[in-house]
Structure formats: C-alpha cells, structure tokens
C-alpha cells in the first residue's frame, strides 16, 4: 500500500492542486460578479421581447433567467427583440438624420431606437448593455434575407470589435432557423464570455469527453511500457576506462584543408498581409452613441 501511494503520488498531488485551482478560480469569479451594482431604475425589467412568437413561454422564461444571471456577472444589460414585420418605411423616416440606409441597416435603426427609448443600461439609463434585434420578416429584402442587428452601448460598445460582433451574429445565424432558443442562448453566453474574459463561448476550448479517455489511455500505456523495462544496470565504462593515463597518445593528427565550394540560392520572400479594421461606431437618431453590426439568415 505504501508503495502504491508512492507510485501514484504524482497523480494524487496533481488532482489536489487542480482541485485547489478550481475552487480558487470559482471563488474569485463569484466575488467579481458581486461587484456590479445596478444603477438604472428607468428601464423595464423585461429583457426578451418575442413579438414574432418564435419562442415558447418556457423558453422565454429560461432566457430571462439566464440573462438575469449573466447581467449580474458582467454588469451589462442584455436585451433580445424578435420581430416579424417589415421595417423599410419605419427606417426610411430617419434617413434625413442618418443618411441613406441599405436594406440590412433598417434593423439597425430599430435596434438603436429600441435601446434608447427603453433607456437600457446596467449602470445608468443609456449605459452599458446591448440589444440584439432579429427580424424574421423577409419582405424588406430583395434577396429574401431575414436581417438582424446587434447594437452595443457603453462598455459593451468599447469592448466589442467588429470581428467580435460578427462572431456573435454568426453564432446566432448558424442555428437560429433550426433551434432559435439555442441560437439566442448563444448570444447571451457569447456576450457574457467576451465581457468576462475576452473569449467567445465557442472559442473556449471545451475538451470532449472522448479526448479525456484517449489521453488517459495513452498515458496509462506509456506508464505501463515505461515501467516494464526489466533490465537493471547500464554500461558505466567509457572507452578510456582501461586506458593507461586515460588518454590515447596521438602521434599524427592533421586536418588538411583541400578546397572549398560555395553555392548560392535565392530566397523567395512573400510580402506581409494587412492589419485588421475597427468596429463601426455611429450616433443614433436619439443622439446616443452605438456600436454594432448585423447579419442575416
């Protein structure tokens, strides 16, 4: 038994250390979550506005609960609006303020205005938060697209780059037609992930269970083979062990240079690529700054 514990000491210590790390991180995250104090009593408590009846009642409830939990953890409002109505005429009314709008931007006008009108923001009205407006109506689009838009404000606006926004939108659009609930859940979790750690939920490396089985099996086999070596003792004599004085006497030792040849080769160098771009920031009709980006499904 003593020998067994001695042999397994490495694994037992590793498990103990990982357990400690796990609980320390969990403890730290819990404390951080409590640091945010809600400073906005103007905005409504509702976060999920399913005007298109895409979600069931229980799904809406589950999303509301998830959003409440995530909002407290990151200190940002997460709002979801699901529409199924043409927005062309609604948006065109704002063209004199915002300039000419393309069909994909109608939903942007709606999103910005929605956020502004309800005065969302975790820290204050028109403060930190975001809204995703997903419009299932396809009549606005010459291509038959259903557009959506993620409008960001405050800390969310300054945190999210174009590529981060695109990632959130793409994650939604990848599955919204098959499973809208899961798609909207990914929106909430992605906002939380990016705000808490700078990684999206899908960027987080989740080790699949089969990988753990394979790695464990490989380690066990290596352990087995490593301990299977039966031979005890290796050669400990050197070539000079029995040589008088430990050294050979060199009577001739010449390294005569004969000739030298040099070959040349031209190296092909590729020119470097360009850098990334920034997020598009604009001011809404209500006069508040928003970041954001959209997509379609």
């Amino acid at each position, binding site marked *: 038994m003593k020998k067994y514990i001695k042999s*397994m000491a490495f*694994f037992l210590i590793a498990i103990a250390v990982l357990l400690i790390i796990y609980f320390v991180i969990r403890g730290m995250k819990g404390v951080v979550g409590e640091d945010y104090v809600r400073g906005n009593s103007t905005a409504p408590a509702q976060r999920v506005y399913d005007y298109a009846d895409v979600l069931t009642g229980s799904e809406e409830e589950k999303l509301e609960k998830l959003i409440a939990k995530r909002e407290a953890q990151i200190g940002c409002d997460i709002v979801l609006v699901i529409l199924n109505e043409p927005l062309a005429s609604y948006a065109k009314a704002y063209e004199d303020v915002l300039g000419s709008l393309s069909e994909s931007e109608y939903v942007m006008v709606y999103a910005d205005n929605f956020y502004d009108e309800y005065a969302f923001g975790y820290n204050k009205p028109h403060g930190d938060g975001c809204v995703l407006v997903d419009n299932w109506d396809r009549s606005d689009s010459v291509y038959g697209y259903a557009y959506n838009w993620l409008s960001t404000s405050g800390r969310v606006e300054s945190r999210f780059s174009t590529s981060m926004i695109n990632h959130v939108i793409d994650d939604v659009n990848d599955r919204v037609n098959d499973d809208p609930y899961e798609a909207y859940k990914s929106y909430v979790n992605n906002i939380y992930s990016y705000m808490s750690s700078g990684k999206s939920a899908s960027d987080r490396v989740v080790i699949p269970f089969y990988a*753990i089985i394979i790695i464990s099996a490989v380690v066990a086999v290596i352990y087995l083979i490593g301990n299977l070596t039966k031979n005890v003792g290796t050669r400990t004599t050197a070539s000079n062990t029995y040589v008088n004085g430990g050294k050979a006497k060199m009577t001739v030792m010449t390294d005569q240079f004969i000739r030298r040849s040099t070959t040349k080769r031209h190296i092909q160098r590729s020119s470097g690529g360009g850098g990334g771009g920034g997020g598009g920031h604009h001011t809404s009709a209500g006069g508040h700054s928003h970041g954001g980006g959209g997509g379609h499904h």
Partner: protein
Amino acid sequence: MIYKCHNCGGNVVYDPQRKKMYCAHCEGTDSEEPVSGGGAAQCASCGAPLQIKPFQSAGKCEHCGCYQIFEERVSGQFTPHLILPFVVSRQEAEQKLNTEFSWRTFAPASFLSRATLQKMEGMYVPFFMYDYHVHYDWSGKGTKVRAWTSGDTEYTETSYYHINRSMEVDFTRIPVDASNQMDDKKMDLIEPYDYWALEQFQMKYMSGFFGEMYNQGSEQLEPRAHKKAERDTEELMMQSIVGYSTLANEYRNMNVNQKTVDYALMPVWVYEYAYRGETYTFYVNGQTGKVIGEMPVSKPKMIGYSASVFGFMMVIGQLVRMIMEVV
C-alpha cells in the same frame, strides 16, 4: 581448509566493514588460524559431506555453516595474482537491491523477502585481465558545411579536408570473467572496478564467501578482451575526429598486441530470486555496489497500477475541463 578462531574455535571470516578478519562467535578480530583438512569432499569443521560444483574454490558447509576454502583450487597453476577484497557488506548489498526495487513499480512484493535474501552470497568471480598496446592509423576525407544568408541570398559553403590520425593506446587490465556460470553480458555491465583496491592474493580474504577458479584458460578467453580493446580504440579514434558534417574513411590499420595477463578474483554479491518457475539472478558489484539484473514483472501489479493511472488521468482530465469552463 577453514579459518578457525584461536580464542574460541569459531569460524573466522573477512568482514568488509571492519576490513579485518572477524569471529562472529567471540567478536574477536584477526584471530584466524588456518586449519586444513577435509579437502573438497568433506567439511573441515564438522566432517559433513560437501556438495561442491566443478570449479568451486570456496563455499559453505550446508550442515554447520562454516566457510571453506579448497586450497588446491587457489594454489599452484590456479593461484590468483590479485584479489579485490569485498568492500560492500551483506547489509549494504541488501540496501542497494532495496533501492533498486523501490522504484521498480511492477516488481513482485516478495522480491526482497527475508527468506530469499538470506540465500544471497558473496562470490569471488575469476577474471582474466589483459594488457594491450594498440597502434591505429586512420585516414579519410571530411567535410564541414557552413550556411548563412545575406540579403535574399542563402550561401552554403562546403570545405573539404584530408584527415590523418595515428594513435598509440596502452590498455591496462581489460577484464573478462572466466566463469561459465556467470552471464558474460552481465559481468561486462558490472564493470568497472576501481583497481586501486587490488591486492596481492591472500587466501584469508576468501573466508566467508564463495569462490570459483577459472573455468577456461586465458588464451581461450583472450578474444573477448581483444574485442573490447578494438571497440574502445575505435571510439577513441572517433572522439579525436570532431567538427565534421560528413566523414569517409579511406584507410585504416589497427595492430593490437597483447602484453601481459593477470588472474584476479573480483567480488560480486549474487542474489537469486525464483518467481513463477523462473530464476532471476541479480549481481551487486562487491566494491562499487552497482546492481545488475533482470527484474521480474508481477502481472496483477502491472494491470492494477496501469488501471489506477488511467483512472487518475480521467479525474485529472475532468478537473482540467471543469477549470477551463470557469476561467
């Protein structure tokens, strides 16, 4: 013959820790008195018949436990020139085996049981030690390659050399065991011995141990030492040719001349362990404590320990997964 204590009549043996002759009965030192008699057929102390192997020169009476030396096998043409007295005591040899055993995870638990350890015996193994003078000429071609870049161009420069070497090597006492029952490879691995401790042969050092006389003559065993001299010379030559990317030999000539040969007795602790019908023999260098052998593997342990590792790794993997989820 047998060494008896002139104080109490007990069996006096050589004690590696005291570096003296010691009587375990009266705890006297250097009180030995050679008592001849019996020969190889019967015990010089109690007269019981002895079971002696063909080349055995020293051993123990199974009946009274007295250590015997068979003089006629260590005298005349069989007189060793040199002996290296035991330095590692029985307890130290046991300790060395224990250390080796402690990190052999799959070794059977009974590997170092009291009962089998008691059967471990110290043995003076016959060795021939050969002196050689070697002359070695070597010549050939070598290249050195250097590469660098300047701007967009990569240059590769190859330099050609003609290499000439001649070396003289004096080998002293290349050992070869002269016992048929000792595994040659294991006896090669048990080297090296520190020759500073070699002494003129004295019979009393054999008291308390087993021993053998040489099984074959020095001429018959010489080729093994010869090969070792050639191998070592070749290695020394290659060590003197350094810094080349490629080497091509054009001429080589090695002359190995044997000079003298010594007959020596070298100390080895022999431990035999029987496991599932097979005997595993371990050797402990009686001077340096180096352990040589082949460790048996216990299948239940092998399976149990590996399964444990698998289980613990699964737990570790799961924990890593949990940590990555909360980060």
